[in-house]
């Protein structure tokens, strides 16, 4: 099909021309015609632009009734039409818009540009603004085509892989975007079917064909299951911004995107899922408390970790509120749970003896545990101690940190690996950590040593060796304490 140029003679205003475009996206044809018309000084109100297939306007019909004239041919020496680069690049895009007025608008702008070459800079001009709007929506449509085309794999007659997509663009952008898909999928056989025409690439040549229907495209691809599961998993239900999604991915595109079918359920489930995420922690945001008594009261109701299900009571620390030394054990044992006080069982007695030997006054220290509840399993009549998990220690850290914030000790003695984790937030090897101080964030000094219960489990030589090691650690702590307290005691 080739373009036809028609013209009608208007009685008083000179000739009226009607230009029929061969294809709705044929910018090159428009440019040639427009150039000639400008050179012949045909003002915009005497040209009608008719899209192929369109009914055109009044003048087209009257043109069809016989008043046909060839377009004027410009004189050789007439001034050539001029247009800025900016105009041309915008016009090339704006010409793809589905607005039937677009070619008339472009011609009007080209006409005005001849007398005001810098007119494109004036963004307050309605024609310039309209052209920019057209350009913008065509660019957006193209961009969405790049983004939302979804290929489905099929086997063609020769048994080769062929990728076929169905897409519904708003504007006449299909041919203009062939290059993008060719450059991206250069070694793939693909077809993009649209109601405005189709593209086919076989790895070497691009072929075009007429409009297609959705039913011409394949209806599924096994990889879509993987893609949908990816889409559902990458979505973070803790942050729901449906408006932001809709503005970038309007509903009109959804029907051709396999993942979009999941959206309603994802949104509906999101609030519920976030509630679950928070409930899974079973904690409520607590205020920091500023007295030990309040803390003990609040800890009594703590059910943040599964140890609470053991039915034991929270054993909080005891000692002076401003003690320079804080001693942290693992968790209360059987005796401690019954007495409601830390370190009163066999391990506590051993600790007391060792402290006395080292010259440390327990009553002047604050004694507590990394985990506040006794964790055990029942064996007959006995409650057997269970080591708390890292997660339980971390959960209980909130209480330990609250105690630290209130007592503000200068020196902290961590007994065993659990206590060290409670204070450091990470698991350390006792062997590596003991014997030297670790500076904490708030300037307190942390000393790590074994738990006295460990000594209780040893016999003979090993026990003597470890007991000596334990004593020497305590002696070092005592020495550090002296340097801190000597000043204040004088």
């Amino acid at each position: 099909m080739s373009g036809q140029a028609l013209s009608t003679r208007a009685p008083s205003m000179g000739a009226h021309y009607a230009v029929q475009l061969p294809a709705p996206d044929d910018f090159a044809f428009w440019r040639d015609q427009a150039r000639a018309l400008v050179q012949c000084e045909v003002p915009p109100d005497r040209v009608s632009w008719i899209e192929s297939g369109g009914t055109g306007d009044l003048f087209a019909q009257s043109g069809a009734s016989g008043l046909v004239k060839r377009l004027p041919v410009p004189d050789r020496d007439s001034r050539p039409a001029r247009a800025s680069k900016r105009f041309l690049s915008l016009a090339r895009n704006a010409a793809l818009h589905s607005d039937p007025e677009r070619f008339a608008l472009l011609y009007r702008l080209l006409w005005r540009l001849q007398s005001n070459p810098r007119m494109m800079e004036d963004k307050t001009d309605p024609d310039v603004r309209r052209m920019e709007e057209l350009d913008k929506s065509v660019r957006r449509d193209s961009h969405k085509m790049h983004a939302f085309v979804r290929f489905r794999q099929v086997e063609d007659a020769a048994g080769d892989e062929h990728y076929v997509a169905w897409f519904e663009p708003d504007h006449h952008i299909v041919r203009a975007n062939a290059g993008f898909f060719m450059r991206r999928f250069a070694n793939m056989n693909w077809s993009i079917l649209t109601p405005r025409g189709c593209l086919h690439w076989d790895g070497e040549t691009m072929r075009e064909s007429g409009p297609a229907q959705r039913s011409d495209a394949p209806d599924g691809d096994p990889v879509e299951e993987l893609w949908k599961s990816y889409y559902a998993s990458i979505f973070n239900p803790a942050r729901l911004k449906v408006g932001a999604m809709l503005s970038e991915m309007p509903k009109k595109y959804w029907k051709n995107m396999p993942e979009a079918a999941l959206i309603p359920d994802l949104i509906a489930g999101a609030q519920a899922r976030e509630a679950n995420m928070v409930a899974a922690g079973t904690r409520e945001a607590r205020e920091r408390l500023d007295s030990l008594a309040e803390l003990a009261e609040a800890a009594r109701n703590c059910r943040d970790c599964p140890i609470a299900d053991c039915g034991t009571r929270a054993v909080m620390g005891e000692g002076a509120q401003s003690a320079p030394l804080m001693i942290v054990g693992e968790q209360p044992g059987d005796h401690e749970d019954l007495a409601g006080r830390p370190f009163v069982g066999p391990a506590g007695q051993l600790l007391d003896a060792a402290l006395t030997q080292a010259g440390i006054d327990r009553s002047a220290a604050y004694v507590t545990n990394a985990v506040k509840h006794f964790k055990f399993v029942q064996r007959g009549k006995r409650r057997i101690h269970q080591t708390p998990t890292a997660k339980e220690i971390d959960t209980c850290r909130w209480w330990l940190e609250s105690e630290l914030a209130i007592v503000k000790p200068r020196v902290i003695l961590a007994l065993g690996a659990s206590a060290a984790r409670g204070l450091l937030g990470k698991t350390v090897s006792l062997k590596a950590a003991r014997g030297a101080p670790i500076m904490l964030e708030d300037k307190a000094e942390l000393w790590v040593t074994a738990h006295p219960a460990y000594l209780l489990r040893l016999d003979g030589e090993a026990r003597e060796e470890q007991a000596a090691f334990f004593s020497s650690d305590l002696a070092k702590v005592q020495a550090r304490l002296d340097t801190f307290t000597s000043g204040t005691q004088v």
Partner: protein
Amino acid sequence: MAQKSLLEKLEILADAAKYDASCASSGTAKKNSLGGKGIGSTEGMGICHAYAPDGRCISLLKILLTNHCIFDCHYCINRKSSNVRRARFTPQEVADLTLNFYRRNYIEGLFLSSGIIKSSNFTMEQMVEAARILREEHDFRGYIHLKTIPEADPELVRQAGLYADRISINVELPTTSGLTRLAPDKDERQIEGAIAKTKDDIIEAKDARKRFRHAPRFAPAGQSTQMIVGADRASDADIVGKASRLYDSFGLRRVYYSAFSPIPDASAVLPLQRPPLLREHRLYQSDWLMRFYGYAPGEVCEATDADGNLPLDIDPKLAWALKFRGTFPVDVNRAGKEMLLRVPGLGPTAVQRIIAARRHRTLRLDDVARLTQSIAKVRPFITALDWRPTTLTDRADLRSLLAPKQEQLELFAS
């Protein structure tokens, strides 16, 4: 444990990757697959192939190689002491998945991150291997973003940069104390050392390409980093300060902010409530002010309140303007670009349009209205041929006039 299917692994490892904010696929070298054996192209502008209901774009296949981890960072769902389901991809599976998605035009490429298994080096090797399979065996020319591990051998990180378009190393938290508290296995000096090394490698490779046309590209889309907001006590001023230091010292393309979101199996030292999503948004706006509006970091901090936080009800630019009203109104027909950029409601595009249009005519308020989104916001801060805000700029209730209307509180909000 029974072997997990590919679908299960994808579910687990995509789920674990969703806390990463970045999904950018822009700003890399232009390439296409014409004349090659494989597929893929990058043409400068990134493409968002889908949007999730959380409003974020899906541009890349963003997954973890594995969510097993030997580290114990408290804010991270994959930390050692967390009991999430674990899975692990082979490098080959990652490459196949990427290609299968790419061929169907679902994605622009791959964003691969990982928990640390065995050792930092072993993990890094596996990630580099996935990128190598894509680039060398399949001649893949799409986008690859690798999250490198600061503790890994620098040579491995360099390898990663040769295959990837962008590499990133997370600084994780805005303050040193936050890092030691919440990510006890990480070390700020090591992280910044690795970022600095990558910066040097990028500069060196750019320099080499100026002299030798065939010198290999190294991370042509540069490097970026990510900070978690709301997990520690850092104020917005701290965060903005840290970000600007990172931009200045390491030439980063982007600093991403990720609002800490409550993760299943969260550690007890973290807040359980999410910080307001708006906070993240305000931080990004402040980031924009520094990158595109010519604000110095100190000036952004001037917009913060007494606690060093940006107001949530209005944007930081408006907050700054309200605080420094003496600078306004600005004459749209005379003021320079820098001053026009400070007017709330005028963005770089509008400013450029104003400057172009005023060559043709003296602008009236109507003209400005045609060039901007909302004249109501701009009006108190400008003068035009037929407009003077008179007392408007100085009104005590200007803030409430301009702040977006409060939404009705949800009655049963949790």
